[in-house]
């Protein structure tokens, strides 16, 4: 059966399309794009007044499956992703067991095929068991379907091992994603080191704990002539380091997350564990630097770092609370509210940073609306406002510091491989 998206404002960066078009989809493939296409029969989605963009691609999320299904599983996680307009997500390997061998990669891929609402691409570990001691079987991980490797949640502290990981991974052309955190400097901190850590008497994680590792990984990639992707950039110095490295021609790419351009450490005041995340929320100055990095292209990707946790893991002492927040269902509205509406990013930039770039960096062949391409499409209203209500999230977990925020931008329809999975804001 045909699916026709009528009269939407199509924005695609690869083809340069930016205007009102109709899109005809057949058998999961975009068959035709044109003005006022006359089609008889088929399912019609009226996209008048809405933006039609390539399905969002998340380069960084946690689906918690296998091992932590009480927080999230592939079904609930991908349902949440679909509601947020994501059609492809790359999930981090800190599961239990971790995605450090072929069997777990296959488990994730197969489970996603059976119960996933969107495309799922597993990320393997860099080291066995994410222990930072020995390299995982990176070739086999790639062969099984892992699109990148990362010890996300933990840094590879041993610089020599990280150097070898970059060299070894380059042989298989698999992206290495670095969680940049010097654990000695982080020193069991639970919040940014600054005014809030001082006032609340909490151990601080200094900004430099991130930046020194960003510097190290840039230098290692430069030295070994390989590429590296820096996860969740949160500090001014990290943005500067990446900017300079790019100018020098180092093959470095970087991502940030909506909470790093919309919130500061002040969100933790009153021991608000919903705002406890790693890297921690920083200062206004860092937020402005991250925004500037997004504006000038230093930061390539906006990822969610969707990190579901059970309420019992958040409703505890701040020191004991789990790090992370759920991000799928707030990401696009936050981007629109904090970046597009103030004129920092255009819709084309959003498509670049949330569709094309993540797809390119992970080698996914997604992020484009064009004839002959797979029909992964997100349709949203740019101006409609919503009050974020965590209880309406499709994610199993409700840990979001954005509960009650009034944001612009509402996802109406999400189409994955030509199948409508979210229609009129409702998960099908």
């Amino acid at each position, binding site marked *: 059966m045909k699916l026709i998206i009528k009269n939407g404002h199509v924005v695609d960066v690869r083809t340069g399309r930016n205007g009102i078009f109709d899109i005809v989809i057949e058998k999961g493939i975009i068959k035709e794009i044109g003005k006022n296409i006359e089609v008889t029969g088929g399912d019609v989605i009226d996209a008048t007044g809405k933006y039609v963009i390539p399905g969002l691609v998340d380069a960084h999320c946690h689906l918690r499956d296998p091992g932590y299904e009480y927080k999230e599983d592939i079904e609930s996680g991908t349902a949440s992703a679909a509601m947020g307009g994501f059609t492809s997500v790359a999930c981090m390997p800190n599961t239990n067991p971790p995605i450090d061998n072929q069997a777990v990669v296959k488990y994730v891929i197969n489970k996603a095929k059976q119960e996933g609402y969107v495309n799922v691409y597993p990320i393997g570990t860099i080291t066995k068991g994410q222990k930072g001691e020995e390299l995982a079987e990176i070739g086999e991980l790639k062969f099984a379907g892992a699109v990148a490797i990362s010890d996300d949640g933990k840094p590879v502290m041993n610089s020599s091992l990280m150097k070898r990981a970059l060299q070894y991974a380059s042989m298989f052309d698999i992206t290495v994603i670095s969680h940049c955190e010097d654990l000695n400097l982080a020193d069991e901190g639970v919040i940014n080191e600054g*005014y809030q850590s*001082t006032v609340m*008497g909490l*151990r601080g994680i200094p900004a430099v704990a991130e930046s020194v590792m960003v510097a190290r990984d840039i230098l290692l990639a430069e030295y070994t002539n390989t590429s590296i992707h820096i996860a969740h950039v949160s500090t001014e110095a990290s943005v500067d380091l990446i900017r300079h490295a790019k100018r020098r021609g180092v093959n470095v790419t970087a991502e940030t997350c909506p909470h790093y351009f919309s919130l500061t450490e002040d969100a933790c005041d009153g021991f608000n564990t919903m705002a406890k995340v790693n890297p921690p929320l920083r200062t206004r100055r860092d937020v402005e630097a991250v925004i500037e990095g997004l504006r000038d292209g230093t930061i390539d990707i906006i990822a969610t770092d969707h990190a579901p946790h059970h309420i019992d893991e958040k*409703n505890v*002492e*701040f020191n004991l609370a789990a790090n992370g927040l759920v991000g799928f269902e707030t990401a696009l509205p936050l981007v629109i509210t904090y970046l597009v509406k103030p004129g920092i990013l255009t819709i084309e930039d959003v498509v670049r940073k949330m569709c094309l770039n993540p797809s390119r960096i992970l080698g996914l062949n997604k992020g484009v609306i064009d004839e002959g391409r797979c029909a992964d499409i997100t349709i949203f209203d740019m101006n409609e406002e919503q009050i974020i209500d965590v209880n309406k999230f499709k994610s199993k977990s409700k840990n979001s510091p954005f509960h009650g925020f009034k944001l612009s931008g509402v996802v109406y329809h999400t189409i994955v491989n030509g199948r409508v999975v979210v229609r009129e804001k409702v998960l099908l």
Partner: protein
Amino acid sequence: MSFKRKDLLGLRDISAEEIQYILDTAKTMKLILTSNNKKTPHLQGKSVVTLFYENSTRTRLSFELASKYMGASSANISASASSVAKGETLIDTGKTIDMMGTDIIVIRHPMSGAPALLAKNVKASVINAGDGMNEHPTQALLDMFTIMEKKGKLEDLKIAIIGDIYHSRVARSNIWGMTKLGAKVCVAGPTTLLPPCMSKMGVKVYSTIQEALIDADVIMGLRIQQERQKKGLFPSLREYFKYFGLDEKRLKLAKKDVLVMHPGPVNRGIELTSSVIDGDHSVINEQVTNGVAVRMALLYLLTRRGGTGETDN
């Protein structure tokens, strides 16, 4: 005025008027405490539970005696810090205590913010008896009470807090409280033991003890924990004393009628020399007495929240 709070979690979010009200009430309590008959019915029919996840001698005893002098039923629970992470959650423990008809829970906990978490989840009033590196409001109140008693005011006094500011909940509570009452607070300590952005809290920060001591009206030493040295935050206790210890000679930099205070327990010869501890300027022992008076005042005010016997809304 009347005291309408359910809990006392810290001095950061409390007004100068409320602090003054507690201190005024403590004056009456001190009269009772220093009289021949230390028994009042202020807390008759009320129950107080002390829930301590950290060791404490003076704070705990101070609360226990305060509630006993006023006729409350009291009970103590000690929990080892190690059981916090694995055993029953704080909220569950708190609810259990709550359901037994407890009016006030006094909590000490190694983690900052734990009393706030407890307070949100119980009907009983919660008093913070020290949480992590966050606050120790009753210590600060007794410190302020002691200063008021000796100096008659806090306004415009130069108060120097010396030592490990980074890990000190006593310093934080005192900074909030004293600055609210108009004192000029400064801190000094090894740079590795000074947290960032302190000046935003309204205090002057010095890295030499001399600058802090000049013309000080009050000097407060803070306890140095031995394990900080082992963690590499400063090289040795010997060197700490050399640069930040308070001896007779340094004491001369301060005003003639300076008060020397310390929350205790003191490491003799490290934070202060014995001659300073036992000298004329020291009010360390009176601090302990005043601690009971201040805690009597707080227990009384919190059980009366909303006014005299009226129900609060």
